[in-house]
């Protein structure tokens, strides 16, 4: 990975007596899609807000393309969709995107607005007012708004929380398209299956600390090989898929009847639950 688009170093944040983040390190490279997981109150939104300059860190720092988070250059390079957001109800989708084009200094004009509405499948709703849209439509419009000005970094805080399965698929396909365009994405989500499907890298935060990080494959590594024999089900913890033939051969050589072999992977959910220790916010 080249120079990271988003670099989080020893980040900490304290709200009064509440330690929201403690010494978190994280990097997101160009074209990388990183999923940030954790229970409610773990510090995910705080980290995202610090990255876009909405919250000031208590210690450590965040850089966007080598510039301090919150600086005009850093803000110009990112797009952000908050978990809790609201757009002026009287704006149409088209007007809202035009407003953000002006604020972002985008020269994309009508072509960019049309493309963004296409990407989130809201072309038909271009002239619809925000107040007349469903929450799901507003969330997709929020994603389009975050993409105004072709940002190099996209920070999405629970972008699919109000979406139905079709809406989620649209956002998932959009994220894959962004990866092809080399956009770095940090995705906060509670939807583990979604993160597992689209993210290259997963970071799990609990109690303000980074407790686990890696690719979904690394995290959800092989957990066991389970073999059903004449004397019952035997589980070989930590064994990999490649070891399964040898295990079966050893069992057969030992005179066991083998009826079924299953290589069991721990799911991201298992990894998550183990990492957060059953915490919930």
């Amino acid at each position: 990975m080249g120079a990271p688009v988003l670099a989080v170093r020893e980040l900490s944040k304290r709200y009064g007596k509440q330690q929201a983040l403690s010494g978190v390190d994280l990097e997101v490279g160009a074209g990388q899609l990183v999923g940030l997981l954790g229970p409610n109150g773990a510090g995910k939104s705080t980290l995202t807000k610090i990255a876009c300059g909405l919250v000031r860190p208590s210690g450590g720092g965040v850089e966007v393309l080598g510039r301090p988070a919150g600086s005009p250059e850093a803000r110009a390079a990112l797009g952000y969709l908050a978990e809790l957001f609201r757009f002026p109800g009287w704006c149409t989708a088209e007007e809202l995107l035009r407003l953000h084009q002006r604020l972002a200094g985008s020269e994309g004009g009508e072509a960019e607005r049309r493309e963004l509405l296409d990407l989130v499948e809201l072309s038909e709703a271009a002239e619809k007012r925000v107040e007349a849209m469903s929450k799901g439509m507003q969330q997709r419009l929020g994603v389009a708004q975050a993409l105004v000005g072709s940002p190099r970094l996209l920070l999405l805080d629970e972008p699919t929380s109000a979406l139905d399965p079709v809406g989620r698929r649209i956002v998932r396909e959009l994220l894959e398209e962004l990866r092809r365009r080399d956009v770095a994405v940090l995705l906060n989500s509670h939807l583990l299956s979604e993160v597992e499907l689209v993210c290259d890298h997963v970071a799990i935060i609990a109690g303000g600390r980074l407790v686990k990080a890696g690719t979904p494959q690394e995290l959800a590594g092989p957990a066991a090989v389970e073999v059903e024999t004449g004397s019952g089900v035997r589980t070989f913890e930590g064994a990999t898929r490649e070891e399964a033939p040898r295990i079966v051969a050893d069992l057969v050589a030992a005179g066991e009847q083998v009826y079924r072999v299953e290589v069991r992977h721990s799911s991201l959910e298992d990894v998550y639950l183990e990492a957060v220790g059953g915490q919930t916010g």
Partner: protein
Amino acid sequence: MSAAQLRSVATVIGLSVQEGLRKRVFLAVLVLTAGFLALYAFGAYSAFEDVDGFVAGETEILDPRAFTGATIFGLAMFATLFLGAVLAVFLTLGVVRGDAESGLLQPIVVRPIGRTTMLIARFAGAASLSAAYVMLVYAAACAITAAAGDWTPDHLVAPALGLALGVAIIAALSLLASTVFSVTAQGIVVFMVFGAGLTAGLLAQIGQAINSDSLHEVGRVASWALPFEGLYTASLHALISETAGLTGVVLELGPFGGSEAAGPELIAWAFAYLLGVLALAAFVFSRRDL
């Protein structure tokens, strides 16, 4: 400031104006204004009619038209300031904390425009609408008074500018309050400050009427602490500053007692105060976690 930043500022001002125009309160203020001007027109015509008969044939040392015109127009100025203050407060209601709590602020603030520029642009939007509003109502009241009794203020423009600067200061104070308080608390605090300013003016007036130096001084200091009141009384003074003789004396004893001319110090102080309040609001906003 770069061209792109200027475009962003113009966008936020435009957004503030659009939001202001779409808020129901703007409609309510317009209805109230129409009601006020209609009642004012009725009152002005009636007052001029009555006073004509009252002094006819008697001594001419008291100019009934000037007395009546200045008195009712002074009351119209108070109503104009009040309605302008209502508009300024509602246009800046929840601009920082309220909008942050509802999630309206964050998508804008993360853009390169920056917090201070955004705040100044929101102020410019609210202050320009409120200032334009008070000047229009002032002009309408002026036209009604001239039509009803053929009376116009001694100075036409200065009082309007004084009121406009006064509501701009109220908008700035309201913006500062929005960085600290939630929507309801912000409204209450700013109207209490507005009331305190008017009470201070009243104290100064009473102090002058009963010849109490300490009361007059308390009112005067309070008026400077909240200079929209100083600007208002200076605007009142400008209405009659050229009115001489018994009419001038009687007006000074009445609703215009305590009013003082706006010297260069007051104008300079009002601008410095405005800038100071905006700087403080920008400082508080820059340190607020959103």
